[in-house]
């Protein structure tokens, strides 16, 4: 009876007792969720357009952030460093296409996945050799003041991150759904052979999509780097975006966003209200449990393409 109370009654009573505090928890969850979404977005882009599950997305986030900080430490102005880093990410896309994807054309998805694991190690290593492995502070001049609205404490930085994510998602959604290149990307994801037959050059498409994923990684790297410093653990946030992908569906851009929000809010609420019942620190594994439940009942995620099999 006591256990029932702790799990199913007390947490809700706590929430009702302090609504302002609950709102703060939810908002902080939403903003963390936005950050997860930014990383998940990079995964979705590459998966949508080439059917490759890019294990190295986290490493790309780290690599982009390291490059940006590295350039800035050497006295390059912020705007130039941003352009420079973006150029490096595009160059990286060219190299990945030429060295990794092209020789593996027409191979199974699992083989490409293995290749991206290799890429993950490579990027982490090269990034740290080139720019050093100590924790760096990234300051690109995003305002970081707190203010109060109706008794709820908000942070300018978090709002800024949410705004950036919203803009990015809007642009990408239009790009995928409305433009000829977006259509070509979807075509390549659907059927390589048919795409070739209608004259879509696979290699160009891959460069484009890896470049876009690289830029998204840069944005995620800036946000996470500015929030918690640029360090090796940045590449581990990629792991947190796995449950986001499972929730949202691997092929859905809106799914990546909503999945991120659910995970962000869910883990914050779980930590605060249910944490004590489990001895705390459930923020670390709550997302994975949620993903597991989804895999059991809705394996394609909330917005993934329905699996239709004709027999």
């Amino acid at each position, binding site marked *: 009876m006591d256990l029932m109370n702790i799990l199913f009654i007390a947490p809700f009573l706590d929430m009702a007792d302090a609504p302002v505090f609950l709102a703060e928890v939810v908002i902080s969850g939403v903003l963390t969720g936005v950050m997860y979404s930014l990383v998940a977005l990079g995964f979705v882009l590459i998966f949508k357009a080439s059917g490759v599950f890019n294990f190295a997305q986290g490493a790309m986030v780290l690599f982009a952030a390291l490059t940006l900080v590295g350039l800035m430490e050497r006295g390059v102005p912020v705007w130039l460093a941003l352009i420079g880093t973006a150029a490096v990410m595009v160059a990286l896309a060219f190299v990945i296409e030429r060295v990794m994807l092209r020789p593996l054309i027409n191979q199974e998805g699992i083989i490409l996945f293995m290749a991206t694991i290799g890429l993950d190690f490579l990027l982490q290593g090269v990034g740290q050799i080139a720019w050093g492995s100590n924790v760096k502070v990234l300051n690109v001049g995003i305002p970081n003041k707190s203010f109060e609205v109706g008794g709820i404490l908000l942070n300018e930085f978090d709002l800024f991150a949410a705004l950036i994510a919203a803009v990015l998602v809007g642009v990408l959604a239009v790009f995928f759904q409305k*433009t000829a290149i977006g*259509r*070509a990307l979807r075509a390549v994801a659907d*059927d390589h052979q048919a795409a070739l037959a209608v*004259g*879509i050059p696979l290699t160009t498409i891959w460069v484009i999509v890896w470049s876009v994923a690289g830029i998204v990684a840069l944005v995620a790297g800036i946000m996470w780097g500015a929030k918690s410093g640029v360090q090796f653990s940045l590449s581990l946030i990629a792991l947190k975006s796995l449950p986001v992908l499972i929730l949202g569906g691997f092929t859905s851009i809106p799914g990546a966003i909503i999945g991120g929000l659910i995970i962000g809010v869910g883990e914050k609420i779980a930590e605060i209200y249910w944490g004590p019942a489990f001895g705390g620190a459930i923020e670390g594994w709550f997302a994975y449990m949620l993903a597991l439940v989804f895999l059991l009942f809705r394996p394609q995620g909330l917005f993934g393409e329905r699996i239709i099999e*004709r027999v």
Partner: protein
Amino acid sequence: MNNARDIGDVLLKVEDISLSFGGVQALTDVTFEVRAREVLGIIGPNGAGKSSMLNVINGFYHPDKGRITYKGTTRTKMRPHEAARQGIARTFQNIALFKGMSTLDNIMTGRNTMMHRNFLWQALYLGPARTEELEHRRAVERIIDFLEIEAIRKTPVGRLPYGLQKRVELGRALAAEPELLLLDEPMAGMNLEEKEDMCRFILDVNDEFGTTIALIEHDMAVVMDICDRVVVLDYGRKIADGSPDAVRTNQDVIDAYLGVSHD
């Protein structure tokens, strides 16, 4: 029969094409030509190398030996997106549509080679790219009307019945406004009514747009009806080439299909 059309010069010529997969010889020294505005049938028993031949023409397979001359340019192999840009479009034996995309989007991909506005414009979906997109959209709507598939414009093609998918695939090939259309068993698995529709579309395409068509088909009645000329393959070799009537009475062809008695 469409004898009224005037058959033009040689559009495509394949010479001495040989292709093998490991130890299996798929094609051996095959030579034939396709003339502008004709409907050429490629027939032969199962495994004769018909699909391999189409794959060589549009560059999916690179032959071990031989030459391909298309519109006056001779080369030893094609590349798929090059072939597409040069006006060769095709359909597949096992439909290769983009299953998750709508009929409209599938057919729009067929116009991919004709989109010129650069990437940035397209990404922004502004200005010239938008005008261009609308132009292509009009062209695609004409094809949709032509093939009588208005009702399924927005349907994801994975949900369509087989016969309609074949029609959408033809639409996607037509969207490229091809000079040479390769059809790999366009009527396989269709009922009589669907076959009649498909025959009508093929003849109309040939008639109205002057598109040259090379098609593989197993239904002899269809082949004899719509083809101007027929090439017969057997075990990777060409055994006959001529008018449908001539081919029908050719002893080698009869033997290939019915077998030879050994007594």
